[in-house]
Structures are given as C-alpha cells and as structure tokens.
C-alpha cells in the first residue's frame, strides 16, 4: 500500500490538505499505541509500526516537494539519494546571481530592504512558475514528462535553499 492509498487520497499533485489532515488524524487515532494496551505483543508492535508509517505518509504528502519526490519515486525516478551533480549552466548562473544578492543582503540587512523585497518577489515568482510546471509534468504520466518533472524538482530544491537562507536573514533582523 502506498502513502496515497494509506491516507485515502487520490495519487495527484493537487491534494485537498483538509481531507489529507482529517484522514491522517482519524488513522492516527485508530492506530495509536494506547488503543492496543491490552492487545497481544504482536498486535502492539504492529500498531507502533503502523502509526510510524502513517506519520511518514502524512509528512511526505503534506509538502508539495516531498509529495512530488514520492510520486516520482513510485514511478521509478529516484531523487532522494542522488549524488549526481546538476549541470544546467544557465540555471546555475542565475542561482549564483541570486546567491550574490542574498550575500549582499546578509552583509548589510539595514541598507538593503528594497533589494530584499525584490529578491523575495523574484523567488516567489520563480517558485510558483516551477511548481505549476512540476504539477503539469507529473500529471502527464509519461517517462519523458517524468524526466522533465525531476529536472524541475531539482531546480525547486535550489530555490528552497535560497528561500530558507532568506528567511534566516529575516529572522535574525527581527531578533
């Protein structure tokens, strides 16, 4: 049983998060180890395993990036442990430029508020664009589209890192 089946949601990128959360909470209650206090050792152990799997499933499907990664993995496209380097020169040059802007902001957060706003906007636009590209590619269900989806997901990972660093700078400014 895969994570989508386990949580009773369709195997899509577009998920209704309220339904996902509701199913998760129901299952979590049903398989909570406390419900198995009087059960046999074997049933107790199974309930612990089941509860852990329900948790993993929810954490994986909740976020679009890990959901996409899981969907692709189900189709035999493994991204999680890949060590191959990414070599899209054009994309990486753009990443370099964004990193340089980020470094500029980190070095002088008080003087770069306009730049920061601009960068935030740019990051959110690019991520939005990549996310819809990713969803569209995954929906096609062809090997070719899956390869494109994998490439898009890799790009999103670079943006996710940038986003995290930008948020870290913002947090420090507020502290």
């Amino acid at each position, binding site marked *: 049983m895969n994570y989508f089946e386990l949580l009773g949601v369709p195997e899509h990128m577009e998920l209704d998060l309220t339904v996902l959360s509701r199913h998760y909470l129901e299952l979590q209650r049903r398989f909570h180890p406390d419900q198995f206090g009087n059960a046999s050792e074997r049933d107790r152990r199974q309930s612990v395993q089941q509860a852990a799997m329900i948790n993993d499933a929810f954490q994986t499907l909740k976020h679009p990036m890990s959901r996409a990664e899981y969907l692709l993995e189900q189709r035999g496209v493994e*991204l999680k442990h*890949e*060590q191959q*380097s*990414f*070599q899209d*020169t054009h994309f*990486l*040059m753009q*990443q*370099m430029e964004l*990193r340089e802007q980020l*470094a500029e902001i980190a070095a002088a957060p008080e003087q770069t508020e306009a730049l920061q706003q601009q960068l935030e906007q740019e990051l959110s636009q690019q991520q939005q664009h990549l996310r819809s590209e990713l969803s569209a590619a995954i929906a096609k269900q062809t090997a070719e589209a899956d390869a494109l989806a994998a490439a898009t*997901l*890799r*790009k999103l*990972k*670079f943006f*996710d*890192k*940038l986003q995290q660093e930008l948020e870290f700078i913002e947090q420090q400014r507020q502290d």
Partner: protein
Amino acid sequence: MAYSSKVIDHYENPRNVGAFEKDDPTIATGMVGAPACGDVMRLQLKVNEQGIIEDARFKTYGCGSAIASSSLVTEWVKGKTLAQAQEIKNTDIAQELALPPVKIHCSILAEDAIKAAIADYQQKHGGQE
C-alpha cells in the same frame, strides 16, 4: 559536525576566490550544483597556449566541505595540463581533506566542476585541447 583542520583552513582562508571574464577564450568555466543541499559551485581555469592551466578561480555557495573542496582544487590544477586535471578524482580530494562519508558528495561536486570546465574549454576550442 567536526571539520578536519584542512577543511577549516580552506574555509577560513579560501585560495583563489573570484572570477575571470567568462567570455575570454583562454578561460574555461565549469558550473555545477547539488540539488540535495542547494550548493552551487563555479570553477574557472585560465589555460595557456600549451594547454597548461596557469591559474584558477572559484566561487562556491555551500557548506565548509564544498568550499574547501573547490579551494583545494584550484591549488591542485595549477601547472597541470587539461588531461592531467581531468585525472583528479573525488576520492583524492576527500582523502586530502579527510571528509566524512556524508560529505563525499562535496568532493564529487568539485571533480565534476573540473570536468565541466574542461568540457567548456573544449567546446570553445572546437573540440581540441
């Protein structure tokens, strides 16, 4: 994570940080990235008429091990021919810097950066070294 003293040395005093003009025909540029951690690495080689690497520059956004791996590589490639540079293995980098298993991918990134730069040079010069 405990970094080795060599990683810390390269991290605190990175060698050859910077950039060359990428459109200069004597300059080879290799850009590589690691999606899993978001690291981005640029390695540039200045190659003379004899095909020998005279100088190198790098810029890396990433963890200490990624910075150290690329810094080390800029030192190693100087004076080598492109063919010799092509022979540098990630395992040599990892060993020199005493990288732990979880950081081996940083040395792979540095090796791939050399290969990407050489490919860029060959493309610029019509496939010959």
